[in-house]
């Protein structure tokens, strides 16, 4: 059987309206900080996740995102601060007493139980009779289009099918908040992309709060209502995907989400949120982000797709074309100017077929963002 055979078209209407009995709850972190011994995993953090929202926490490994998830699910007690779910303080409540369900990175399906028993396990733990819980499990397996697989063992299923069993198992206990710890990371690219849409569709259908942990910005941007970017135990920015991409609040967010051309320089003039920076390639003008003053060292960020060829914008740089990499719909041009490398992404077409070695790169004032010095995502 091909791997696609088990995957049903997203949004089909043959799905039972299972979500009607479930209601999402909001999750609030109130000055939560978490320390292990003398290392701080999470700095004091305030965060509100709305009821019924698909919320992602995005960050590199070791940034504390999994710690936050485990704190919400109850496996870790915060060192300071409170976790509130639906307005209720969760202090002293174990994972089994919270209205949350966690989907583990490795799914943690029970290998010795059948798929149906896996899904019914949460109901079994609540003392629901065998016939009733298996009927319920069957309904949930229909929800994730696996109703033919109840008698199989998890090992007999494909990666994507196992994924959906884990979702069904978590939904069986009718949680108000579903916590997902990078559950797609073990899947191959094509399946991962499919599961993104799938997850989003399931979330829409059941209407509960999803909190999704990932280090993959593509996943976070594609699925989420809002995304929190984390670095070194601190929330860098909480915003919807478009804002995050277009208006990153910090140099870390700017470089972690999407690609950036980074210039270092010193601020020469600053007026009305417009900053001019003296950089190795000359004076660059852009929008000021964050607290800046004249004479400060600064970082200038320009996204590769915001640079165009020609000399039509506020900032123009004469550069030399080093290499041209065809991506398909777009072309990445690697250019060099005054010892500085630039990546330029332009739409593929006849215009970028035969380029001269000497080029002019230009970008508008609004396309360049000027930040105070700070940590970048990649060194």
């Amino acid at each position: 059987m091909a791997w696609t055979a088990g995957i049903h078209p997203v949004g089909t209407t043959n799905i039972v309206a299972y979500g009607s009995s479930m209601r999402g709850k909001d999750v609030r972190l109130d000055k939560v900080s978490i320390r292990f011994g003398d290392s701080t995993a999470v700095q004091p953090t305030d965060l509100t996740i709305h009821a019924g929202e698909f919320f992602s926490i995005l960050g590199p490994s070791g940034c504390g995102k999994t710690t936050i998830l485990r704190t919400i699910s109850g496996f870790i007690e915060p060192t300071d601060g409170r976790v509130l779910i639906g307005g209720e303080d969760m202090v002293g409540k174990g994972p089994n007493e919270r209205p949350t369900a966690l989907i583990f990175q490795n799914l943690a399906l029970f290998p010795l139980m059948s798929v149906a028993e896996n899904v019914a396990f949460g109901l079994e733990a609540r003392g629901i009779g065998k016939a009733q819980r298996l009927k319920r499990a069957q309904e949930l397996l229909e929800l994730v289009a696996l109703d033919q697989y109840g008698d199989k063992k998890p090992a007999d299923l494909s990666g994507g099918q196992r994924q959906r069993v884990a979702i069904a198992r978590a939904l069986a206990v009718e949680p108000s908040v579903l916590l997902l710890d990078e559950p797609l990371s073990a899947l191959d690219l094509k399946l991962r992309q499919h599961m993104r849409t799938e997850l989003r569709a399931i979330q829409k259908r059941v209407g509960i709060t999803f909190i999704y942990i990932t280090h993959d910005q593509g996943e976070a941007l594609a699925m989420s209502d809002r995304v929190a970017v984390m670095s070194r135990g601190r929330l860098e920015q909480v915003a919807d995907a478009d804002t995050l991409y277009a208006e990153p609040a910090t140099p870390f967010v700017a470089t972690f989400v999407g690609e950036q051309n980074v210039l270092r320089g010193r601020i020469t003039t600053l007026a009305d949120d417009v900053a001019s920076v003296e950089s190795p390639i000359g004076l660059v003008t852009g929008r000021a982000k964050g607290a800046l003053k004249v004479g400060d060292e600064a970082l200038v960020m320009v996204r590769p797709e915001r640079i165009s060829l020609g000399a039509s914008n506020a900032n123009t740089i004469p550069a030399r074309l080093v290499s041209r990499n065809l991506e398909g719909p777009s072309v990445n041009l690697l250019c060099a100017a005054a010892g500085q490398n630039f990546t330029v992404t332009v739409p593929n077409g006849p215009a970028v077929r035969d380029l001269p070695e000497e080029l002019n790169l230009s970008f508008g004032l609004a396309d360049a963002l000027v930040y105070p010095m700070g940590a970048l995502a990649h060194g």
Partner: protein
Amino acid sequence: MGSLARAYGRPLALTLTAILVLWILALILVPLGAMVQQSLWWKDSAGDVSLTIDRLYNDIATLQLDAGNTTDAGKKAALDAEIATKQGEATALEAKELNPGKQWGLDNFTRMSSLHLYIFVRTILYALMVTALALIVCYPVAYVVALASGPRKAIILTVALIVPYAINELLRVYAWLMILDYRGVINGVLGWFGVVDLDNRGWIPFLENPSAVFLAMIYTYVLFMVFPIVNTLETLDRNQIEAARDLGASTARIHRRVIIPHAKPGIAVGCIMTFMLSAGSYSVPAIMTRGQGGDWFSQLVYRQFFESNNWNMGSAYAVSLLVVCTAFILLMMRFFGVGLRDIAK
């Protein structure tokens, strides 16, 4: 052999095969074969023959006295002839006494007395109880060791488990003897508190109770139960425990539905080893009961060999114990749904 030779070359393949054959011979076929062979034959008791020989010599002595006293040459000749005949008979019987005929059959197995059969059955039951108690004691220990957070803690726990086993088994059993004896550590402490009166022999006779043997046996064989369970538990994905907890399962349910099913092969191996060792243990019951408590079957086997000097009967007893234990293990494996493949893992 062909594929071995292709993979490793002829000399190495030959060596490997030779080692394998030697292994099977030395560890399985020869000892077991010798025991089974010994158990399948016996020699007739020579008691009647010896008595007849004694009588013949008595007769001969009387006849020789008569022959010495008589003066009648004819009568003397008759007596001498009779002596010669009896001497011949005695010589023939002596040869038979020295080398009684071997008889083959299952008599050694069927001749077990009802008392010995009772001890046999009781030993199996006792060994079962030891196994069950050891499992109850060891499962939590194994669980803690296997799921100890951090490799450092796991190493400390493992060392703490192994250290008592660096001491000779006999010493450990004798230590328990000293603890449980009439004037042992426990009675001493109780006497000191005035609970028992040692001066008037009012001690608690721990050693006269089978549980004293159980205690020493569990202590002696606890590692054989702990380590297989630790090994299987270590392979358990801890996320499964957390997932079960997250889904609302109580601790008891997590053990029953997630951890124990996973540990089943380890539990099976631990139970088999503990059962086999305790059913066949000689030193522990011999030392702990000192004849005060009931015998275990292994003690009967010992006596057949070294006190009755009846190796055939002893072999038959030993083989019976082996057969029943093996059958029992296969039964338990079937019952728990554990295959050889799971155990070998």
